[in-house]
């Protein structure tokens, strides 16, 4: 056994110990520490393998013989999991302290991390599917342990129902792959013909796509993520949806490779729909955690754009750009894991301090919670894709891939690339809109409620976790060029660029983020000096001479109103205005407005109604009498025998 193997084994053992021991009455803090060390070791092993160490453990096998192993791609995802898990566990130390079911929640959190690591390290179908199901169930249990009122139970029900219905796709895909022997031999599926390949690909798109939160199968995500405890939300949004992407990447680029052209177009279209739809509805949310959940859909969509572009480039024979697009998707996956975990953890601190995450009831928290607030602002800037932070690096790389796809020469692919590039640009603008609104409503201005004015910073660990992640946002943003070449090597077709801090890709003007960062900070500081210590006159903000009263404050809806009006045809908002008159005078005006989620009203609503109608029809044959059911069995048996006799089956 090499040292790396030992490290991996030690990491796994510590993580398991940290998960099991709280159930044997070990207090939560040492258990969380054990989990953190274990996850950290696994992440370190992952990073070592990604940057060139030999793969650890077994290779993929088709039989049902449990096996674990780590190769480059698994290593990347393990590192991403660790990068989110460490701050989340640190945060959980103070977040869970004194809470009801503290030890059980610590154990469930550990179980969740074990299952996440397990999926990416599983090397045979049985372990893969077992960990996959565990990954779905562990957060559901954590949610229900913490809160179990009717609304939360419904959210968890929708989460389990949708992910299990979609999850059937994962089972079909993995079992079919094992059946054809394609897990161990990537060429095996291609030999089965395009029918088998199409079956596996469609099943994978539905199964992994549901779990990744890709539109239109994302309906569970904005329901389940906001109700989870914050450190679990961070893991769900930061890593769980990424682990689903891991599965999709394995299928598209390894087990069912080379993916045909239509799959590339489908992935590109789904990515575009998720990106635009996700961020548009994120912009319209009033609850911070729901906003963050919708924005996860957007970011998974952006990663899917990269994957789709990579397939299309590969089908065109452009190995370098296929690898760049692939690396862009992975880089965005990592970046999103970091800043989304940051934002969820900070949101948890705000909720703890204020008691509500209604955007219109916060305000002015930057002054009261400077550390958490500054980290939140940094995360918001990163997720809005602003240079020189990490979100910009990966969005720039994705946009470059799409723009180069548009260069042609094929007409269809060129137009698809241009449409996707325009869509990504619009997504970035919408994300900026959304997160400047979130920053403004949460951190800036005056407190909108007395309890907000009394908010204080959370304990040290809860303060440190978002700040650490903020540091990661800056570091990943400044030197993306050190990671991207390693990610490009994971792409099936090869293709490489030089390893240096700046992203230097042929056919672009390069992205020297480090110097951009130095330039922005340096120039801002210089101008700050020039602006100087001149006397500033304290004045009220201008409102045509009126005082700005609380009722005059700008709300979340008011800020996004122009966009809502422009997109009225798409969003179809409902509004009711009720004027109460008495004696010719208007006594009061009541206003109610909502924007229905288009996917719910147009897609899930009708589907649910059809399913219920179908169930009503099916109920007619449910007589409840044993003799009736025996007759059904007999009829079925006879039908099978007849079918065999005639030669339809068997």
């Amino acid at each position: 056994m090499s040292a790396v193997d030992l490290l991996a084994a030690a990491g796994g053992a510590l993580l398991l110990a940290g998960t099991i021991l709280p159930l044997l009455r070990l207090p939560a803090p040492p258990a969380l520490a054990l989990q953190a060390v274990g996850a950290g070791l696994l992440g370190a092993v992952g990073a070592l393998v990604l940057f060139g160490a030999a793969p650890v453990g077994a290779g993929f096998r088709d039989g049902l013989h449990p096996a674990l192993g780590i190769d480059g791609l698994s290593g990347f995802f393990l590192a991403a999991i660790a990068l989110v898990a460490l701050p989340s566990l640190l945060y959980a130390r103070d977040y869970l302290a004194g809470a009801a079911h503290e030890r059980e929640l610590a154990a469930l959190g550990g179980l969740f991390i074990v299952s996440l690591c397990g999926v990416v390290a599983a090397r045979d179908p049985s372990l893969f599917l077992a960990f996959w199901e565990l990954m779905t169930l562990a957060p559901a249990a954590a949610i229900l342990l913490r809160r179990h009122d009717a609304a939360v139970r419904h959210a968890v029900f929708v989460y389990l129902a949708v992910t299990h219905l979609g999850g059937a796709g994962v089972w079909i895909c993995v079992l079919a792959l094992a059946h054809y022997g394609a897990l161990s031999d990537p060429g095996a599926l291609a030999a089965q013909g395009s029918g088998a390949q199409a079956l596996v690909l469609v099943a994978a798109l539905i199964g992994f796509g549901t779990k990744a939160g890709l539109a239109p199968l994302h309906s569970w995500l904005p329901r389940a993520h906001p109700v989870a405890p914050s450190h679990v939300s961070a893991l769900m949004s930061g890593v769980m949806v990424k682990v689903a992407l891991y599965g999709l990447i394995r299928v598209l680029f390894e087990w069912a490779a080379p993916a045909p052209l239509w799959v590339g177009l489908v992935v590109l279209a789904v990515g575009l729909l998720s990106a635009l739809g996700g961020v548009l509805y994120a912009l319209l949310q009033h609850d911070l955690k729901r906003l963050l959940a919708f924005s996860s859909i957007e970011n998974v969509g952006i990663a899917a754009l990269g994957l789709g572009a990579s397939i299309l480039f590969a089908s065109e024979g452009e190995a370098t750009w296929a690898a760049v697009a692939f690396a862009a998707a992975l880089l965005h996956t990592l970046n999103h894991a970091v800043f989304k975990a940051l934002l969820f953890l900070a949101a948890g601190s705000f909720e703890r301090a204020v008691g509500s995450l209604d955007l219109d009831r916060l305000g002015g928290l930057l002054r009261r919670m400077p550390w958490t607030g500054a980290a939140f602002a940094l995360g918001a800037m990163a997720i809005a894709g602003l240079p020189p932070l990490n979100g910009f690096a990966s969005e720039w790389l994705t946009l470059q891939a799409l723009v180069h796809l548009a260069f042609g020469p094929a007409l269809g692919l060129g137009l698809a690339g241009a449409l996707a590039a325009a869509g990504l640009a619009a997504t970035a603008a919408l994300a900026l809109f959304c997160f400047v609104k979130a920053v403004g409503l949460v951190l800036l201005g005056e407190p909108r409620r007395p309890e907000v004015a009394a908010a204080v910073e959370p304990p040290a660990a809860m303060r440190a976790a978002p700040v650490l992640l903020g540091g990661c946002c800056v570091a990943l943003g400044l030197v993306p060029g050190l990671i991207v070449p390693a990610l490009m090597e994971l792409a099936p077709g090869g293709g490489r660029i030089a390893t240096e801090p700046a992203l230097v890709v042929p056919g672009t003007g390069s992205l020297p983020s480090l110097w951009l960062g130095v330039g922005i900070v340096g120039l801002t500081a210089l101008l700050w000096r020039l602006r100087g210590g001149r006397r500033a006159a304290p004045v009220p903000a201008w409102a045509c001479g009126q005082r700005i009263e609380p009722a005059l404050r700008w709300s979340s809806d008011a800020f996004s109103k122009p966009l809502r009006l422009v997109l009225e045809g798409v969003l179809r908002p409902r509004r009711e205005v009720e004027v109460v008159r008495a004696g010719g005078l208007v006594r009061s005006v009541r206003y109610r407005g909502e924007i229905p989620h288009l996917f719910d009203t147009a897609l899930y609503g009708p589907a649910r109604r059809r399913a219920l109608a179908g169930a009503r029809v099916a109920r007619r044959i449910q007589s409840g009498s044993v003799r009736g059911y025996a007759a059904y069995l007999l009829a079925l048996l006879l039908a099978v025998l007849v079918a065999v006799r005639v030669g339809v089956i068997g």
Partner: protein
Amino acid sequence: MTALAAAIQVLGGLALAPLLPGLVQSMKARLQGRRGPSPLQPYRELRRLWGKSLADPQPTTVVYRLAPCLVAAATVLALLLVPIAGRAPDWSLGNDALVLVGLLALARFALAASSWDTGSGFALMGSGRDLTFAVFAEPLLVLALLLAALPAASTDLVAMAAAAAGSGPWTEPVHWCGALAFALVILVETGRQPIDNPDTHLELTMVHEGPLLEYAGRDLALLEWSAAARHWIVLVLGAELFLPHGGGFWAQLGWLAAGVAALCAGLALTETAQAKMRILRAPGLLAGGCLLALAGLASFLIGGL
């Protein structure tokens, strides 16, 4: 030559930028039969503002005070990415067109955040509209840059400017579509009619001016300069990528000056001939520009260059 290009990039960008809005205003006044202000008026305004004291709306945080510096810093960096007469000195910042888009977005974010910090309704109204426009303007900008990048097959601005030289591009419909799309970008980024009215003093109609309402003194001077520098960036880019140019460095410099002057005249003419459009209709115009750009791309992919 590169040293001269660097000098024009920095000094020209810093010093000549305020001349452009001044030039547009003075041409517009002439076209409307007024005497109007001198083209140097923006310089006088900047000098006046530089000497005045600052205003600090209560209660604001460091975000409000930092925003003008950040906006100006992002704009200066954007300025350094734009080549002059086909030359770009090496500032180690690269010359990527899409990085420019990111820097402009950073400036927009800083200004919108400052509006939230003041909590002023007019500022927020303006930035809400500005961000709504950006949702449609950013795809348009990316598509226009994409069309300009087609001949060079690179998003390096220097390569793009070189590939757009000569008369070759003008025989292709894609070039015309790109030029029209970029013209709309110029209107949005400079905040000109029919998208926005730079002369308005009515708070309710403001888009780009709204977030500037609370600022005074040097803060306002920085923001006014940034607005002028945005004129410089898009007009120089427009002249370098979409207007005729070619020849050696000096010839290109001449073409650039003529091109920027022509674009200023074009802006003045549009402002005189066109009334401001309803705010909610502007996104439709920009979306139309996007469709035009896609049509241009289709023509390129069908016909080749």
